């Protein structure tokens, strides 16, 4: 049977994605900085044969205040430690092209790919906030266009560096005293607008050729970038129709870039709140809702919309001037999603905050395991998703419940693997190992 399979990624976040999850009696408020918490979550996901786990990131103490765990690990560091305690599961780390140097980041990613034996992935972000710029000696954040231009060149440099070692470099010939083959090592001598990088890298070509390249962010610039570089895309949608439109759009853009649309997987976020009955699920959602601190949500909303929180009235709809404004600097795709949601469902700000509390604009589905599996199947078979970014509202319990109750249904329906077929993350996602660009040149001559 060769039925198409969906892909499942566990998006991990301290005690859970719901903003009040750390206040639940069964979560650990110190989870954000506990290695064993992440090891345990990774092992749960691996036992369930998930494709990967994922950590978001920003180089900033999150500016949303004292009502939520703010401190966090740098993702590549914690995921490397997790790699040492797991065997198969992919490890997706967020890192910024705006606040890293390509040589250093390409090297760390290649290192993690070697340490994990081919399980590393990079969620590429360009870091939009003023707070991040202020941590990197910049008076003003770079413009979006500049950030994406730099990101594009960053990717070009990173790929050259990963290709700077031929796969056949290692000889280990003790007899002749030849450890490596110098003809398999190439300077890259990149000269561009943002970077001048000589190379070669000081790490052999990653096990996967390149780490898997992931992108999140659905702005125009983000979509163009994803179509060119990304192999998996994380995205937030509230409705099937929006998800279908995005899916069709991105796949068309990928084709226009001359790429195979099957090699770009679209994975919308899904926050499942699961109960044995619909009433149980609703009660669980209500328990979380009761623990929410409105000030926290308000600050986060103000951050999404890039406005002053003092201008917002909780018991009125979003102000007209915000709703009607055009796309502008600092106003990204998530802001658009939030405004659309508020308008479509005619929500007051207070109601809107409640809707955003579970997953910051990602799709929260409250129901029985069957209902959740039904929605996943619909999105998967109706051209809206190649899989899902599963976001436990509370962790580990939200992931455990999903694995125990929803995954078996997906398997029964033939939609999800029961065993890993390969060893690397690219193999889990059904993606090819990239050909070395310098070998192509040699072959072309």
């Amino acid at each position, binding site marked *: 049977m060769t039925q198409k399979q969906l892909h499942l990624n566990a998006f991990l976040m301290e005690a859970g994605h719901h903003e009040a999850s750390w206040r639940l009696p069964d979560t650990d408020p110190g989870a954000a*900085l506990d*290695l064993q918490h992440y090891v345990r979550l990774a092992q749960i996901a691996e036992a369930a044969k998930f494709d990967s786990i994922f950590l978001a990131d920003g180089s900033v103490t999150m500016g949303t205040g004292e009502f939520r765990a703010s401190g966090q*690990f740098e993702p590549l560091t914690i995921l490397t*430690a997790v790699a040492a305690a797991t065997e198969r599961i992919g490890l997706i780390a967020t890192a910024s092209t705006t606040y890293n140097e390509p*040589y250093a980041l390409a090297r760390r990613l290649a290192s993690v790919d070697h340490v994990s034996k081919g399980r590393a992935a990079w969620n590429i972000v360009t870091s939009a906030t003023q707070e991040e710029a202020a941590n*990197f000696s910049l*008076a003003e954040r770079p413009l979006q266009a500049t950030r994406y231009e730099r990101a594009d060149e960053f990717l070009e440099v990173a790929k050259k560096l990963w290709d700077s070692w031929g796969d056949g470099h290692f000889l280990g010939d003790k007899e002749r005293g*030849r*450890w490596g083959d110098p003809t398999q090592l190439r300077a890259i001598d990149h000269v561009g607008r943002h970077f001048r990088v000589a190379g070669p890298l000081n790490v052999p070509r990653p096990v996967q050729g390149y780490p898997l390249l992931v992108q999140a962010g659905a702005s125009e610039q983000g979509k163009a970038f994803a179509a060119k570089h990304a192999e998996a895309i994380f995205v937030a949608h509230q409705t099937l129709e929006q998800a279908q439109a995005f899916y069709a759009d991105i796949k068309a853009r990928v084709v226009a870039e001359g790429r195979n649309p099957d090699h770009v997987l679209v994975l919308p976020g899904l926050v499942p709140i699961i109960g044995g009955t619909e009433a149980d699920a609703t009660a669980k959602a209500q328990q979380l809702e009761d623990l929410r601190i409105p000030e926290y949500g308000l600050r986060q909303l103000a951050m999404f919309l890039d406005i002053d929180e003092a201008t917002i009235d909780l018991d009125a709809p979003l102000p007209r001037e915000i709703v009607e404004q055009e796309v502008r600097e600092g106003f990204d795709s998530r802001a658009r999603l939030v405004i659309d949601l508020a308008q479509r469902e005619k929500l007051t700000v207070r109601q809107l905050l409640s809707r955003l509390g579970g997953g910051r604009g990602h799709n929260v589905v409250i129901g029985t395991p069957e209902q959740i599996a039904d929605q996943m199947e619909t999105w998967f078979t109706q051209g809206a998703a190649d899989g899902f970014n599963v976001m436990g509202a509370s962790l580990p319990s939200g992931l455990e419940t999903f694995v125990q109750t929803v995954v078996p249904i997906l398997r029964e329906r033939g939609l999800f693997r029961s065993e890993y077929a390969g060893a690397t993350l690219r193999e889990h996602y059904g993606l090819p190992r990239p050909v070395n660009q310098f070998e192509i040149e040699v072959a072309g001559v």
Partner: protein
Amino acid sequence: MSNRQLSLNAFLHDTGHHEASWRHPDSPVERAHDINFYIELAQKAEAAKLDGVFFADVPGLWAATPYRPTAHLEPITRLAAIAARTERIGLIATASTTFYEPYNLARLFSSLDILSGGRAGWNIVTTQSDAVARNFSLKEIPSAEERYVRAQEFIDVVTKLWDSWEDDAILADRGSGHYFDPDKVHAINHVGRHYQVEGALAAPRSPQGRPVYVQAGSSNDGRVLAARNAEAIFTAHQTLGDAKAFYDDIKTRAQKFGRNPDHVKILPGLSPFLGDTEAEAKELQEYVNSLTVPAYGLGQLEGFAGISLRHLDLDEVVPLELFAGSGDVLDNNRSRVQVVANIVERDRPTLRQLLHRLAGARGHNVVAGTPMQVADLISDWFHGGAADGFNVMPPLYPQLLDKFTEQVVPILQERGIFRTEYAGSTLREHYGLPRPNSIYSDAAGQAAAVTTA
């Protein structure tokens, strides 16, 4: 009776510190970039109660050579994996102040310190290589003076970031919904010549307060940086006399900065070939030396000394005048050349002999002897005011680390100068270093901190 204890570090480096180590028939050369190889070495070092493991680093290719391993995974990454499979041993990574952003570096070491339960150390280097500069959009490396000025500001920024959350900032009060106390999380608002950083760090204060500050390099600027900031110093000396002079100099300088000299641990490199008899140890050394490829060593020496040696016969005594212009050991960039000049002057080696001396550990002290002889040397330097411990650099991994931990360490333990059990759980505790308070935790400290900017 003084209860002064040795600090011992295992300096991990490919298949061994000897450049030809990988050609030894027992060398696991195919594992030189397998993380499990390094995890096993760290576990052995931990079983022997060593203080830490250490990776040197350069963010570029050390030498595009076919003659020895040249691949080096990024050290913080390696140590994060090692952290997950060890419990107590310290984890020291080199990272450059010239090529990192302070915010990123502060986060990486903070993450390593938190996930390892307080075992991280940062070996602070400024990186002296045009080739590396060209990987980072620079035409050439900034001058040593410039790099060290920048390094000091970098360290100040990183320190403020590590201190930016007070130790008791996290409340995690489920009832009230207050996760942290905003009055105890500080913007650092650093404004300096090279960096403007607002803060706070994206993570709370780590178990050690600050990871341990380590420094290597004996130039004048390096010594100032070390005396002012470092809590452990890795250094290369060939003789007890040289080591003692360095030791006295650093401790005096540290005192002048108002620091307690006992909180600056001086750890010279030591690369021991061990045998059951002295003859056996020397035979092993000779054998490994015979595996070197002269073209490699010659290229290395010419590179860092900045002179041509190709016209010399391998078996000709190296003329003194070739190294006559090596300058003072305190010159920036020149401290390692001076070590070579001293060997040439003192021992009058042939070029081949010189290359063999350097092949062992790039100018560090290579010895060949029995476990008792090596333990004696360690005791002599330790009691003779030349060392607080050693950076142990086995010429061959894993076999000569095994011999060191199984045969030298027990002698040191018997003599009461090395622990038989870990007394603490953090690297600071192993080294006997205090846990620093956050500069933001009291008003006086805050004022003092601001003036260092």
